[in-house]
């Protein structure tokens, strides 16, 4: 580990993107300029040559969950379907800076998922085995091994949540989420994509069962295809079509401390105590909490969740007791019944959904952008998206990732 007080941060590119005025029509309209919408636009242009594309954003670019998340990237999910999409994403992360010609501070510092009970241990070991069978790097570590990787972690046994072991994915890590968004925005803009901020979609235009555009606060815009990447607000948009999605939207919170010397050079997550922590490039401790206990669209979370998270964090990392909470914030996440995303076609021709990523969709950004663009361009699910179809809730083929995803990350 190199101990640095002021790690180098790359300079921003001179030019990112230019604001565009909406045209009367586009081949593809993407709703939502979070990471998923921007990455989808980029791969539509790059992989499929579709550049007559607009990304419509209600607020400002990446002002939703994209720049509110705790940036954890990993692919150690349990089921084959999940390994497929998340590992595809991780491989793209590994080449992303070169591909976008833009630094995103992707740092493969590894992720520990702590086990605090016999149930956790069994789930973790099973997941390590499943990961290895899927070619995803994963190891099971004893408490002593865990402490070698994260020396400040308290592994004593006389605590409420003793560390009984952990899964470790060395290729996992973090990136700077706003730079990722800007990198995709810049590259998509350079290929001709219109990025339009302050343009809320208020309804979907249809002719029979075919979607032909969207209504916005700046008037109607026609489109051959409409792709939703609106995260926590997906249900609100589809409700205007009478299309129900199996989603509930919840506030999810995170917080940072002041800038501190480097004390933690890996990512530590704990499902049971609902805390996950890393130390960002500048030195602040970044900690995420669990979702609020009730449906909500207020972009703020409830205080008891933070209190609970801090109590757990301090037990796991006693030295954090001296740190201060500098800022807390919340984002609205779209939680699905099986903790897996919903991606693909809809009962409406020309309408595609990408939602349900809940607490863990940042890590998927390049992978889902790639797969969603392919799904839209070819009007059929990409093979990696196929299992995540909306139809799974009726046919029963759920992809239950509560073990790997129950904690927000």
């Amino acid at each position, binding site marked *: 580990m190199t101990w640095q007080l002021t790690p180098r941060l790359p300079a921003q590119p001179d030019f990112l993107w230019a604001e565009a005025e909406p045209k009367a029509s586009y081949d593809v309209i993407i709703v939502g300029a979070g990471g998923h919408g921007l990455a989808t636009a980029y791969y539509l242009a790059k992989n499929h040559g579709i550049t007559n594309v607009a990304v419509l954003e209600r607020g400002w670019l990446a002002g939703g969950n994209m720049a509110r998340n705790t940036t954890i990237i990993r692919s150690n999910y349990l089921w084959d379907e999940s390994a497929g999409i998340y590992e595809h994403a991780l491989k793209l992360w590994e080449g992303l800076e070169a591909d976008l010609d833009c630094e995103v501070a992707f740092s493969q510092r590894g992720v520990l998922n702590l086990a605090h009970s016999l149930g956790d241990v069994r789930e973790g070991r099973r997941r390590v085995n499943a990961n290895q069978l899927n070619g995803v790097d994963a190891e099971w570590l004893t408490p002593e091994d865990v402490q070698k990787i994260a020396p400040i972690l308290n592994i004593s046994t006389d605590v409420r949540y003793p560390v009984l072991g952990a899964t470790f994915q060395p290729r996992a890590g973090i990136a700077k989420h706003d730079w990722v968004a800007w990198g995709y925005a810049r590259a998509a803009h350079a290929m001709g994509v219109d990025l339009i901020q302050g343009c809320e979609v208020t309804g979907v235009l249809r002719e029979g069962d075919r979607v032909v555009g969207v209504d916005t606060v700046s008037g109607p815009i026609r489109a051959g295809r409409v792709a939703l990447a609106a995260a926590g607000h997906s249900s609100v948009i589809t409700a205007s079509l009478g299309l*129900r*999605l199996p989603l509930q*939207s919840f506030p999810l919170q995170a917080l940072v401390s002041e800038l501190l010397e480097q004390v933690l050079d890996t990512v530590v997550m704990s499902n049971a105590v609902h805390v996950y922590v890393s130390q960002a490039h500048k030195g602040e401790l970044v900690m995420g909490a669990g979702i609020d206990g009730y*449906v909500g669209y*207020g972009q703020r979370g*409830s205080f008891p969740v933070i209190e609970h998270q801090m109590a757990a964090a301090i037990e796991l990392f006693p030295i954090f007791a001296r740190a201060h909470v500098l800022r807390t914030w919340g984002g609205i996440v779209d939680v699905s*019944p099986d903790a897996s995303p919903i991606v693909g076609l809809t009962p409406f021709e020309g309408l595609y959904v990408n939602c349900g990523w809940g607490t863990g969709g940042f890590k998927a950004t390049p992978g889902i952008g790639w797969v969603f663009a392919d799904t839209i361009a070819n009007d059929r699910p990409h093979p990696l998206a196929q299992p995540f179809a909306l139809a799974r809730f*009726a046919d029963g083929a759920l992809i239950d990732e509560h073990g790997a995803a129950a904690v927000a990350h």
Partner: protein
Amino acid sequence: MLRIPCPWCGPRDETEFCYGGQAHVPYPADPSTVDDADWAGYLFFRDNPKGWFAERWMHRAGCQRWFNVVRHTVTYEISASYPPGTSRPDVA
């Protein structure tokens, strides 16, 4: 922190309660005739409005009884609290 009015105990902090999701979702009257799509609807599909929402709460650290609340999902304002088995009052 929400202050949730329990119909029996009065207003208490949210930490005393647990959440039951959307209210007024009845178990299918004749389960053997329900097709896959309707089962999926009953099991997995809930309203997710940005606005007023009727939802179930249980006063776990108090009287342990379930009841319903009408709450706004953006402002978190609560406009009604009523016992189970009664219909949603005509507020907001």
